[in-house]
């Protein structure tokens, strides 16, 4: 499991790497980005008091973790396609080792991973206040309940 601390730096390092490095270490970079995605989703699952699943969906634990993180939390579906895009790019990198666009594909995978990190971090930041996503269930339900419980 990749440690959450330093995730930003690892993504930035990949984005700053030369095309030659990206091409030479493409599989390692793809694995690292997938691990970052899993680590971020693990944080979300753990924050909700659950044990992160070790299962896979369509061959990817990332997708299983997303599915687990979205149970009872419809707004989490807002990062479903981001997870699937990360998987898609990892597949492109792994399955076409001689493709000339490999460096570009790694960069795009890194940007997709960065979006996932930002989205989940945002959700975690506001977890005590309500939902991050505007398509979500009532934002201030907890606040309203708390206010109603105050005597007088």
């Amino acid at each position: 499991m990749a440690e959450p601390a330093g995730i930003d730096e690892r993504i930035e390092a990949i984005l700053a790497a030369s095309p030659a490095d990206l091409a030479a270490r493409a599989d390692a970079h793809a694995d690292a980005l997938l691990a970052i995605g899993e680590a971020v989703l693990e944080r979300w699952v753990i924050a909700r008091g659950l044990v992160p699943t070790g299962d896979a969906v369509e061959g990817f634990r990332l997708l299983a973790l997303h599915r687990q993180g979205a149970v009872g939390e419809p707004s989490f579906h807002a990062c479903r396609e981001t997870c699937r895009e990360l998987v898609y790019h990892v597949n492109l990198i792994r399955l076409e080792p001689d493709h000339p666009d490999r460096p570009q594909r790694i960069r795009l995978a890194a940007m997709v991973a960065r979006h996932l990190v930002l989205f989940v971090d945002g959700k975690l930041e506001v977890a005590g206040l309500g939902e991050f996503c505007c398509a979500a269930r009532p934002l201030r339900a907890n606040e309203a309940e708390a206010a109603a419980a105050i005597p007088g």
Partner: protein
Amino acid sequence: MSSQNSKVAYYPGCALEGTGSAYDRSTRAVGKALGLGIEELENWNCCGAMEVKNIDPKLQTYLSARNLSIAEKMGHTTVMAPCNGCYHNLKKAEYDLAHDLASVEVNERLSAKAGHAAYRPGKVTTIHALDWIRDAIGEDGIKARVRNSLSGLKIANYYGCMYTRPRHIFPEKDKGPGSESTSKPHFMDDLLAAAGAQNVDYPLKTACCGGAHTLSDSDTSTRLVLNLLTTAEACGADVIATECPTCHTGLEMHQARAEKVLGKKTTVKILYFTQLLGMALGLSARAVGVHENFSESRDLLREKGLG
């Protein structure tokens, strides 16, 4: 031309009267250029947006249902909402009234109190501006009407998160060829390609823009938007095409904020798809409200021979 969508009820929603006025202007202009009739709902109200929904979702259902009841009363069977938030909320009201008895009860009670007939599901179909143009005119119809091709313009099509989510309120999507996809939406891509644009493969087309966080946590929104912008640039895009006023405004404002606060400058332009389509149909940049955008794109448009 599909007769069903050649004249529809038009629900602009609050954003299109304010920050999204260029979207309203360009939607009306494109409709007129294409010979499509729209009739604005009389005395429409807020759809409930995020604010009401977050506090009382059933009140939001009623507010959206009232707009649907107005469309029905005006004799329309289709209402077109260009704003993703409005589109989403009207679709959600339709779903809730068909599936949730408590929502039905609240809608009946508030409608009676307000003195109008309660909306019953199945009477009016809500469509997006993308559906409207695609169904009524289609890609071939656009191709035949292009007077100023978008050729040479590389576009990242950005749909935002509310156009396709949650899937269950959009039963018409994911029905195979010809229908919209919730995982890889393509209607905007199709229309702009028909107008000559070169669409780039943009991996964040439905990713979150942080719109709901703009005021409460601007830094998160700025970082999310900055990533959308830099990814579009990495894909080679000159322009991000939008179809939601909240996304559009967020992209524009946080593009400026990213430069000011984070020192990260991006140059990709942000335009509504209706503005791009309008210029392809021969309308001037001014006629589609490019001057109202916060993002300055006129130099690029002139360079490409548009507007």
